[in-house]
Structures are given as structure tokens and as C-alpha cells.
């Protein structure tokens, strides 16, 4: 084996040089070993770029596995709860996967790149679980996280930006579709996906093309209000979209020590992803049993009165706070909805959509703590779901 240089310290994504140029705050943190910005200029400005123009997010650190081989479909179909045989080449599926006990390990997106060739993207790393799932199947699994540079291009003008950049045929790309294009001599994959709940795309290419891709993109986006963004703005946007996050809204099942700290997909509002018509998938037996006997928890989307974000708040069934039924896992003020929103977990059967719950919010003013019991309504739909998100072709704005 030849000697390989192992990078020391935090890794830099192929876009680092461009991010660093734009950075004014010097606020960075680690995401899966990579150094990434909390924000580059101002989290609020970046957030508004998502909702009003085009925001660009470097998602290279996102865990990416390439899954190929004769049994690739059998493998993925057994791994995740939804029916993957329906996901044709050129389509992307949001999916969730469980352990044998039907408890969520993680959620992510699966790209059917070409016939029998898949890419699985997730927040967490899953090498051991994926390898164990391959036992007895003719399938090969490669961690390609570092081999693929990826950018999310999100917002109402994202279609206009990418069209100006010169991606042909983008107008026909439907939500959760992907296409391969030859762009300026290199291979580029474009998918209509994202984590913001808005119109948006993700661009995927080899790391050596990263800088040139970035430059084309930002040149094209000059008149459509393009901005690079950090993770703070994304966090706000994803809560508005009602997207859940590992380690925040649920714990990966294989990372918990205590019983009862995991969540099943049914308890995360992902029952639409669980296809009991499939004869076998990881967790099927346990989930079928849970469906029969009832879940313990329910994920709720809360529209809370007032304007104080309900970070880490307890949720009660009554105003007096006599019956503690759960807690908030994600909370933010939503500028675009003008709502105080949160995601939380409550004990079944409470928290049905339309029901009224109470959230105990603590806030600090000049060191002294205050407490307010805020009324919260359980809502069914994502807080933010603009029409443009589903429009094909999208408006050029």
C-alpha cells in the first residue's frame, strides 16, 4: 500500500476557498469533520435569500454512499421502509430507515442515478449498518462523501439563476427528479431537491470542478440576488418546511443507550413512507405491531402564540401545566410565515392536528428569567409550502 496523506484537523470542502472569500464573520463550526460556516454575513440576510432570491449552501459534508450491484434494488428496498421499486432511474426518494425494532436510524434521500445505481444521502454516517445490510447480497457500497462536491441552490430565483447559467432542460425537471448534464466539459448532476421547503436544486459534481461550478453559478446569479449561506439560515428554513433532523428531532436508534429514547417513523409523522405492502424491510414486523397496538409518541408541528421561540420547552395538555405530555425539539420564529413555530414530540393519543396544547417558554431579560404558558395549535401541513415548490416548469420570476 502506498503512503497516503491524511489531512490533519478539520477538512475543507472543495468550495472552501470561495466561501472564505465571501466570509465576513469568521464563524465556523464542524460538520462531519468539515469546517463549515454558521453564517457568512448575517444569518437573517442569508435566510431571506432562501425565501426571496437564491441562496447557495455547500452540502459537500453530507454523507453520501454509492450503492451498486445486481442486488442494489433488493438491498435498498429491504433497507428503507418505502417501496423503492417505484423510484425509477432519474428520480429521488425521501426515505427513512429503521433497525429491526422499527426504530428510526436516520432519514435521507436516495437518488436513483442510473438503472441499478443509487446514491444515499444522510445526515449521519452509516457504514456499519449499510455493510451489515449487505451481508448475503450482491451489492457494493462506497462512501463517496469526499468524492462528490455538492451545492444546494435554493429559493424563488434558483431556477432563473441556473437557467442563466446554461443548464438546458431544467424546466422539465420535476420535484424529486434528477438529470445528468454535460456542463462546460464536466459532468454535472442536477436534482430538484433541497432542505429548505422552497423551490430549489442541488448540484453534484467531482471535487475538481467545484470552484469553476461556483464561479459560473455566482456569475449567473448576480442579477437574481444570489448569496452564499451558512447552516443557521438553513436550520430556520428547514423548521418552516417541517423537516426533521437527526440528533435534534429524533436520535438515531443505534446511538441511544436508554430504552424509549428512540422514535419509530410512525412516531415521526412519516407513516406515509412506511409501505406495509412490501413483504420484508428492516423494522416491518415491529412497525406492523406498533400500528396494531398504537404508538407511544407523536411528532407535532406547533403554531405557538406570541413571538418568543419555544426552545426546549415542555409541552402540556392544560394551561396550568398539570399534565406534561412532551417537549419541543426544534423552535424558531418564522419571518416568512410571521409565526412562532416549533416541532415537538408528545405522548399519544394527545396532539392530534387541530388540538390545543400549552407550551412552557422560559426567556431571560437582563439576567432574570420569566416564564410564559403559551397556547399552541397543532397544525397538519408544513408551515411553509409555496406553490412554486411544486411548479413545473417554475416561473422565471
Amino acid at each position: 500500500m502506498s503512503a497516503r496523506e491524511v489531512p490533519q484537523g478539520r477538512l475543507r470542502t472543495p468550495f472552501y476557498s470561495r466561501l472564505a472569500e465571501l466570509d465576513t464573520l469568521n464563524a465556523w463550526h464542524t460538520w462531519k469533520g468539515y469546517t463549515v460556516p454558521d453564517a457568512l454575513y448575517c444569518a437573517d440576510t442569508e435566510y431571506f435569500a432562501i425565501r426571496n432570491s437564491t441562496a447557495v449552501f455547500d452540502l459537500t459534508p453530507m454523507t453520501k454512499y454509492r450503492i451498486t450491484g445486481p442486488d442494489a434494488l433488493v438491498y435498498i428496498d429491504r433497507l428503507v421502509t418505502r417501496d423503492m421499486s417505484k423510484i425509477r432511474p432519474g428520480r429521488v426518494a425521501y426515505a427513512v430507515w429503521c433497525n429491526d425494532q422499527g426504530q428510526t436510524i436516520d432519514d435521507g434521500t436516495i437518488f436513483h442515478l442510473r438503472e441499478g445505481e443509487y446514491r444515499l444521502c444522510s445526515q449521519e454516517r452509516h457504514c456499519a449498518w449499510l455493510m451489515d445490510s449487505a451481508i448475503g447480497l450482491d451489492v457494493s457500497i462506497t462512501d463517496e462523501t469526499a468524492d462528490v462536491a455538492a451545492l444546494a441552490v435554493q429559493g424563488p430565483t434558483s431556477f432563473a439563476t441556473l437557467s442563466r447559467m446554461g443548464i438546458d432542460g431544467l424546466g422539465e425537471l420535476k420535484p424529486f427528479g434528477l438529470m445528468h448534464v454535460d456542463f462546460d466539459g464536466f459532468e454535472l448532476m442536477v436534482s430538484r431537491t433541497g432542505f429548505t421547503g422552497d423551490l430549489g436544486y442541488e448540484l453534484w459534481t467531482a471535487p475538481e470542478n467545484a470552484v469553476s461550478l461556483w464561479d459560473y453559478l455566482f456569475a449567473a446569479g448576480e442579477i437574481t440576488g444570489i448569496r452564499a449561506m451558512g447552516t443557521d439560515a438553513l436550520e430556520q428554513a428547514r423548521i418552516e418546511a417541517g423537516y426533521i433532523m437527526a440528533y435534534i428531532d429524533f436520535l438515531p436508534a443505534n446511538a441511544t443507550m436508554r430504552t424509549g429514547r428512540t422514535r419509530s417513523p410512525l412516531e415521526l409523522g412519516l407513516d406515509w413512507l412506511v409501505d406495509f405492502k412490501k413483504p420484508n424491510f428492516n423494522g416491518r414486523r415491529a412497525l406492523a405491531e406498533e400500528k396494531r397496538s398504537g404508538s407511544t409518541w407523536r411528532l407535532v408541528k406547533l403554531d405557538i402564540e406570541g413571538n418568543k421561540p419555544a426552545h426546549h420547552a415542555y409541552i402540556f395538555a392544560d394551561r396550568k401545566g398539570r399534565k406534561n405530555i412532551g417537549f419541543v425539539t426544534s423552535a424558531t420564529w418564522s419571518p416568512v410565515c410571521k409565526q412562532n413555530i416549533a416541532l415537538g414530540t408528545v405522548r399519544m393519543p394527545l396532539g392530534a392536528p387541530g388540538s390545543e396544547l400549552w407550551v412552557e417558554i422560559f426567556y431571560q431579560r437582563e439576567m432574570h428569567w420569566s416564564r410564559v404558558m403559551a397556547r399552541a395549535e397543532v397544525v397538519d401541513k408544513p408551515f411553509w409550502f409555496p406553490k412554486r415548490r411544486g411548479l413545473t416548469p417554475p416561473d422565471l420570476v
Partner: protein
Amino acid sequence: MTDRYDAIVIGAGHNGLVCAALLAKGGKKVLVLEANEQVGGAAVTREFADGYSVSACAHLLYQLQPKVRKELGLSPKLASDAMQTIALSQDGEHVRYAGADVRGVGGADVTSYRRFHTQMSRFADLLNTYLNTTPPRLGTSEFKDLATLARLGFDLRRLGREDMRTFLRLIGINIHDEVTERFESPLLRGAVSFDAVLGTHLGPRSPNTIMTYLYRLAASHGRLAVPQGGMGTIAEELAQAARTAGVTIRTTMPVKRIVVENGRVAGVETATGERFHSATVVSNADPKRTIMELVGTRHVETGFTRRISHIRMRGNAAKLHLALDGLPAISGLAKAEFGERLVIAPDEHYVERAFNPAKYGESSAEPVIEMTLPSFRDPSLAPTGKHVLSCVVQYAPYALEGGWTDAAKEAFTKTCIETIVRYAPGLESRITASELLTPADIEREFHITGGHWHHGELALDQFMFVRPVCGAAQYRMPLDGLYLCGAGAHPGGGVSGAAGRNAARRILREQAA
């Protein structure tokens, strides 16, 4: 449809036969499919040289559960019973023991051995209760599981404070510590150590070798017997009991796969493509073969697959068969004593040293050997005046470095014979034929992954509640309609029938509910 059965049992090993017979007695229409020509699995008698027959794997009967005997009305004809173990010494000063009695050692050892055997037998009785029942599930609120657990706790308490503490202290520790603490005689220490590690990938200093010793004593306190006609007659008798109960047994029918339709078992397909339908398939094959090969991992879940694939089951015991043109001479051994069990394990360190190379994929340079001369009391096994020497030889690791080539087998055979010759000078000139069955051969001939006679190492992490794996210890596998009934399931190997009986009872109870 004519070929639809209530249950199909894959493999006519002794457990498969017990299970099939009891299912049939419970009113089920049962089909047993056996890959080999003979029934019995590893409990077979077969000719290995012209006119010489031998029990091909297991050659001593001591674990057959009384309940199996009773429920199936078995009364095997024994060529020998209550055999002595004779721990051979090169100088002819052998140590002999049977039951609680030992001879050839000092007075202190006599008392000590008696106490040891009595106490171990008491513990083994406790263990045996639980070998004959489905282990309870842990972490459930099912009344039956909780009741069994409570009873286990109660039974432990009932041993009395002193014995309970001793039991709990001993169950995880190694036999070496115990024998050195209790006995002075190296021969006795060696032989008892060997008893504890027979058939395992463990040495006397390995943990839980007291547990394996208790396992050996469980059914009959270690009372040794040899069936007339070899172990195959036990299998034949079981097959007869099964047929009488209405079971159809078909041999030379290797099952290629278990058919799974719509997420549940639908039957089996043989190597010749023949299909048999049943909503219940009971596998006497080991758990790895059952899940990884017959079912296919795609039909089960990842966590279960991982556990199954991690079962430790590398056999380490080889079987050596020698055709002799006459009785060998062993100094200090009376002629009548050739009918007993002879052991070469001169001291506890010898046994451990025999094990050492096995850790690194090498066979023992000085193996430990258990010998019987079945033809001595059962002349039908060999031509008149000639004899069969049947030996269990350790350690012969399944995954031998470089593989079990003909040269490797020849070399190990030579090593074994040289070892025996030290005790039986002149033996080599009496050998007219020999056969060595390494774990690799046992795997091939008896379809046991790793050639491990317990279908999975007998260790605390693969025992009781977690045998074969955590979450599937109740014979029912996490695939609707699939059950295990072999040694890989609770409680383990040996010609005991416990796994087959427990599985049948479990299936009957579940299907009655």
C-alpha cells in the same frame, strides 16, 4: 394438493427426528427431508473401511434427555452402559472414574472428587430443568416469560445460600481454576478439564468451561453409554418412532432453499427442483446455514442477519477412526477395560497447550484424545477378532492455516497415532485402515457450518436466552412460519433431543393458540 404438509422438517438429524415425531404425535402431518442417504445427521453409524463400522461423529451416549426417551418410547439397546473413564498414564498408573467414584488417586482426591461430582450434579440438575424448556424472553411483560424467569430465580435460591453463591461464582469461570483447586492428581485434573472442553473451541482456561462441564452432566450426570450398533441405531429408532407417529421421511433429498412468499414461509425447494408446500418449516440445519443459505438474508432483517452471521461456530474436534487387526496393548489396562472410555489428557496444562495452536489456526502437536473401542462389546462393528478404535481428537481447527489438504490430514493423523502409540505401543502395526474427519469434513458430510458439533459455540453469550441469537431464542425465527429445532437453538448439541423436543412443544403450543 398431495404434497402439502402441516410442517416440513429440514434434516433428519436426531433433533429433527425428535421434533418431527412429536409434531406428528401432536396431530400434524409432517415431512422430513434429509440430504444424506442415512437418517441421523451426525448421529450415524457407517462403514469407513471394509467390514469396519463406526459412529461417524458422536460415539458416546450420555445426553439423551429422559423426557425424550419417555415421550417417544425409546429403549435403545446399549452395548455398554455406565462406562468408566480411564485417564491413561504412560506408566500404566491410570486413573479411573465413573459417577462420583474415582480410583487411582490419593485419598484426598477421592473425597474431593466425590464432593465435586455431587455438587456439579446438583447444579447440572438445575440446569437441566431449563435445558428442557423454551428459554424465557427478556424484557417482555408476557406472563409466561416472567413466570419462567421467576422460577429460575426461585430455583437458584432453593439451592441454598452457600450453593447458590457457588453456582453463580462458577457459571462463568473456567474449569482449570476449579480442578487445580480441588484435585492433586494431574491425570484427574487433565481428564476433567478435557471433559469440560470436548467439542468446543475452548481450553481449560477459557471462561465458562464450568458451564460446558455442567452441560455435559445435565441429562444423566455424565453416565456414559454406547448404543448397540453405534449411534446410528439411536437415529434409526427415532426414525422408526417418527414413522410410527405418521411422519414421512425422505432421504437423499437435499433442500436447496426455503421458499418465502409474501414475507412468510411457503415451503421448501430441493436441489432437484422439487417443491413441497407448508406454512411451517422447521430447520434442523444450523442457524447460519438456515438463514444465510436456505432462507437468504433478503427475507430477514439486518440486525438479525448481523447476529446470525456473527455466531461463533468453528469446530475444533476431529474424529479419527482406526481399523485394527487386533486389540492393542496398553500397559496397566486389563482386557475388560477396553470397553471403557479411554482418555489421553495427562494433565490440565497438556489440555491447554493442545488448545494453544488452535487459536492461531494450527492443529495440536500433542492432541487430547478420547478413545472408545466400540467393537469390543459390539462385535457386529468389525470382522471377527478385529477392532475399531473411535477417537475424538482435539484440537483440529476448522479454519486450519493452509486448509485441510490431504497432506495436512495425513500429518495430523500421524500426530494422533503417534500420541496414542505412546500409551499403546505397537498400535501402529495393527492399523489396517484409518479415516480422519476434520471439522471441514464434518461440515461437508453433515452440512454443519464450521463442523461444530454444537451448531454454535457453547458459551454464555450464545446460551439460553441468547441462543442462537438475542431476540430469536424461542425456536421461532423472525420470519413467519420458520422455526429452528437443531443444536444451534437452545440448549445446544450432543445427542440429547432437547432442542427438537422443545421446538416441537413450542410449535404445537403456538399453533394451538
